[in-house]
C-alpha cells in the first residue's frame, strides 16, 4: 500500500464522508453545536498544531526579529524624540533668555532714547531761549542803530544843506570891500602878534 493510499485511508477515517454526517430537513448538523465532531476535532487540532508549530519554527524568528527591529526603531524614535525635546527645551530656554535679554535691551534703549530726547529737548529749549534773547537784543540794537542812523543821516543832510547855504550866502556877501577888510584884519592881527600861531 502506497503512502498515498494510506493517507487517503487515514483521511477517510479522520474525515467522514458526507453520507456519514447527520442530515435532516434543515441540512447537515453536528452533534455538538459548539465543538465539531471528534473526527474533525482531532485532525483539525493536529493540523493546527502542526501549522502553528511550523509557523512558530519558521516564521517565529522572523516575526521576533521584526518585532525587535520595530521595537528598536520605536525606541530610536523615542530616543530621537527625547533628544529633540531636550534640544527644543534648551532652545526654548535660550529663546526665553534671549527674549529676556531683548526685553531688557529694549527697555534700556527706550530709557536711553528717552533720556537723549529729554536732553535734546532741554538743549533745544535752552538754545532757543538764547537765540531768542540774541534776536531780541539784535533787533533792539538794529532798531536803535536805524534810529541813530536816521538821525545821523538827517543831521548830515541838514548840515550839508546848511553848509551849502552858508557857502552860497558868504560868497554872495563877500564883495571887494569885505575881501579887503578880511585881508587888513589878517595883517593887523598877525602884525600884533609876536610869536608864530597856527
Amino acid at each position, binding site marked *: 500500500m502506497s503512502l498515498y493510499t494510506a493517507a487517503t485511508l487515514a483521511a477517510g477515517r479522520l474525515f467522514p464522508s458526507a453520507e456519514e454526517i447527520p442530515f435532516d430537513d434543515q441540512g447537515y448538523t453536528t452533534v455538538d453545536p459548539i465543538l465539531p465532531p471528534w473526527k474533525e476535532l482531532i485532525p483539525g487540532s493536529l493540523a493546527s498544531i502542526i501549522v502553528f508549530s511550523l509557523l512558530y519554527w519558521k516564521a517565529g524568528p522572523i516575526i521576533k526579529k521584526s518585532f525587535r527591529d520595530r521595537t528598536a526603531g520605536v525606541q530610536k524614535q523615542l530616543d530621537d524624540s527625547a533628544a529633540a525635546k531636550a534640544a527644543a527645551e534648551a532652545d526654548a530656554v535660550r529663546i526665553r533668555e534671549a527674549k529676556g535679554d531683548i526685553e531688557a535691551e529694549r527697555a534700556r534703549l527706550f530709557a536711553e532714547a528717552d533720556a537723549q530726547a529729554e536732553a535734546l529737548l532741554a538743549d533745544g529749549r535752552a538754545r532757543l531761549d538764547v537765540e531768542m534773547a540774541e534776536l531780541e537784543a539784535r533787533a533792539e540794537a538794529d532798531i536803535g542803530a536805524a534810529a541813530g542812523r536816521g538821525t545821523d543821516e538827517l*543831521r548830515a543832510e*541838514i*548840515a550839508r544843506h*546848511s*553848509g551849502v547855504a*552858508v*557857502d552860497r550866502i*558868504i*560868497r554872495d556877501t*563877500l564883495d*571887494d570891500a*569885505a*575881501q*579887503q577888510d*578880511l*585881508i*587888513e*584884519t*589878517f*595883517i*593887523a*592881527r*598877525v*602884525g600884533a*602878534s*609876536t*610869536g*608864530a*600861531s*597856527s
Partner: protein
Amino acid sequence: MSDAMIEGYARALFEVARAEGTLDEVEDELFRFARSYESSDSLRAALTDEHIPAEKRQAIVEDLLGGKTTTTTIQLVSMVVGSGRSRDIPAIVDSLVARASSAKQLDVAEVRTAVALTDDQRARLKAALENATGKSINLKTVVDPSVVGGVVATIGDTVIDDTVRTRIEQLKSRL
C-alpha cells in the same frame, strides 16, 4: 622824477636866473606860474600831453607868459616843458624858491588870498609875518579863489589860517 633830478633842474634854473641878474623877478614869476599850473587842470593837461609835440607845448607857454613875464622866465619854463618835465614844474619851482630864499637867508612865506594883494598890502603883510615869526621872509603870494576870503600864510611848518573857507569848514564840521 627823483629828488636829485628835481634839485638838478632847480639848481640850473637858479644859476641861469642869477647869472641873468633877474633872480627875484624870475623866482616870483616861476612861483606864480607853478601855482597856476597846479590849479589849472586844462593847463596841466596841455603841458603834460605826450601826444602834443614839445614845440607846441612850448608855444603854449610862450603864448601864456609872453608879455607878462621876463624872457628868462619864459625860456626857463619852455626848457622844462621841452625836456618833458612838465609834471615836475611845481616841485622844481618850489626847490628853486627854497634855494633862492636860502641864498638870501630868507624863509619862504606862501600867502594865499581870494583876491590879489596890493603892493602896500604885500609890504605890510611881509612886515607883519616877519614880526610874528621873527624871521626874514621871502613873501610869495598866490591868488586862490578856493580860500573864498581872508588869508592863509604858510611859513615852513607854520600855518596862519584866517580864511573864510576854513571858517566855513569849521562851521560845517560843527553842524
